């Protein structure tokens, strides 16, 4: 897909700042800088982000104001509004004042949306089976690590990766990369917010994992950069906004749940559990996706990105499950159920995101493949 600005440098800082900061509210002056509104919630956030500073600040509508029930997991308007509010904590938007990151009206809008989102995710995954009170296992870290391996090691073939390996065509790959781009262009950034919320062994292990995700000191090896290289090799933009505009609710939810966990200290255990489940279910699918890319003869950076993750995530799985989650639970046994909630949330929400990609493809006749 041709992006609106393919010349934009690879995941470059998007701040214009200084004299380039836009002085007034005018959506037409921010083309392609913000996602396109798709309902009253995202429209309200965009209005707040582009407000004329001389306008009196107005509160941002949240789902409770709509007068009808909203399911955060399937409502694209809800997820898009939340994604933009979270993005203020990552790169922000060119021309949007950076200090809106801590704008009280935007934070006030975010909190009820986060509560509704968390409740929906908890409802999706159901109760977490972990003994409360005095019946803790003697080695809670080992017990939690075993539970994570059990939850993530079903042995079943991941259907989406199977499809990509065996049947997908180039357009399927482009769609798949476009969906993944919403997270992968920010790869590993949510988890960095968790580092200052940890101490001791799990902190050291998370820092070690993040150092690898961030290229081990080589900018060209940043995983987000490797993904951008894959996009560029197919002539796809490395600007995240066009991908956000195409992303279904489930794709945005899968990204937002990481920010929900990482930006709320209360949920640090869930952030770590999410990371462990993500890493533990990554290596095998990445191998299959890489094989499919080689089958189709896609440019080398596409397969190379996934091949890197075959190897890296085989390491990260062990580090995340044992050295991060296991050590964290040994130090903080009261947060074991939070870790397991994060594991379940990762698996359940990512399954929704995979299904959103796969369902339109599933009716494809077998003979179309090859």
């Amino acid at each position: 897909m041709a992006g609106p600005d393919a010349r934009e440098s690879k995941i470059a800082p998007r701040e214009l700042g200084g004299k380039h900061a836009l002085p007034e509210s005018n959506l037409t002056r921010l083309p392609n800088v913000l996602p396109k509104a798709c309902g009253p919630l995202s429209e309200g956030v965009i209005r707040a982000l582009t407000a004329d500073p001389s306008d009196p600040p107005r509160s941002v509508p949240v789902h409770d104001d709509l007068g009808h029930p909203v399911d955060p997991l399937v409502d694209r308007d809800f997820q898009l509004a939340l994604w933009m509010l979270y993005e203020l904590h990552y790169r922000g938007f060119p021309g949007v004042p950076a200090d809106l990151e801590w704008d009280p009206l935007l934070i006030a809008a975010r909190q009820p949306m986060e509560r509704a989102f968390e409740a929906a995710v908890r409802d999706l995954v159901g109760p977490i089976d972990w003994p409360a009170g005095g019946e803790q296992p003697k080695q809670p870290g080992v017990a939690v690590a075993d539970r994570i391996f059990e939850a993530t090691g079903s042995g079943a073939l991941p259907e989406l990766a199977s499809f990509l390996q065996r049947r997908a065509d180039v357009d399927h790959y482009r769609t798949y990369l476009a969906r993944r781009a919403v997270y992968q262009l920010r790869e590993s950034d949510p988890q960095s917010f968790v580092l200052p919320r940890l101490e001791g062994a799990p902190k050291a292990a998370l820092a070690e994992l993040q150092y690898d995700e961030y290229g081990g000191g080589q900018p060209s090896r940043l995983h987000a950069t490797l993904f951008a290289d894959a996009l560029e090799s197919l002539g796809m933009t490395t600007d995240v906004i066009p991908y956000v505009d195409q992303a279904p609710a489930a794709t945005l939810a899968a990204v937002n749940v990481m920010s929900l966990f990482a930006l709320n200290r209360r949920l640090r255990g869930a952030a770590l559990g999410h990371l462990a489940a993500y890493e533990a279910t990554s290596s095998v699918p990445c191998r299959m996706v890489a094989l499919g890319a080689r089958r189709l003869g896609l440019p080398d950076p596409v397969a190379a990105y996934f091949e890197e993750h075959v190897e890296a995530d085989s390491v990260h799985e062990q580090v995340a499950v044992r050295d991060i989650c296991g050590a964290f639970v040994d130090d903080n046994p009261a947060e074991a159920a939070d870790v397991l909630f994060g594991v379940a949330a990762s698996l359940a929400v990512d399954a929704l995101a995979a299904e959103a990609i796969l369902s339109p493809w599933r009716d494809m006749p077998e003979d179309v493949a090859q």
Partner: protein
Amino acid sequence: MTTVSVRQCPGGPLLVRGATQVETEDGELVPVARPVVALCQCGRSGRMPWCDSSHKFGSDGITRRRQD
């Protein structure tokens, strides 16, 4: 002096920290490019000497091995 630490993951790879290169059974010296690496222990990896998570599956594997 660099300390190399190794840890066996039950049912999984050997985690190695602090190594700069690994010598394979064939005598090939493979540089280590990560702060921690996972060495295959099941013999089924397609990316020897590194773990590629093949230990999660039966001996027939679920995907073709790389031929190189």
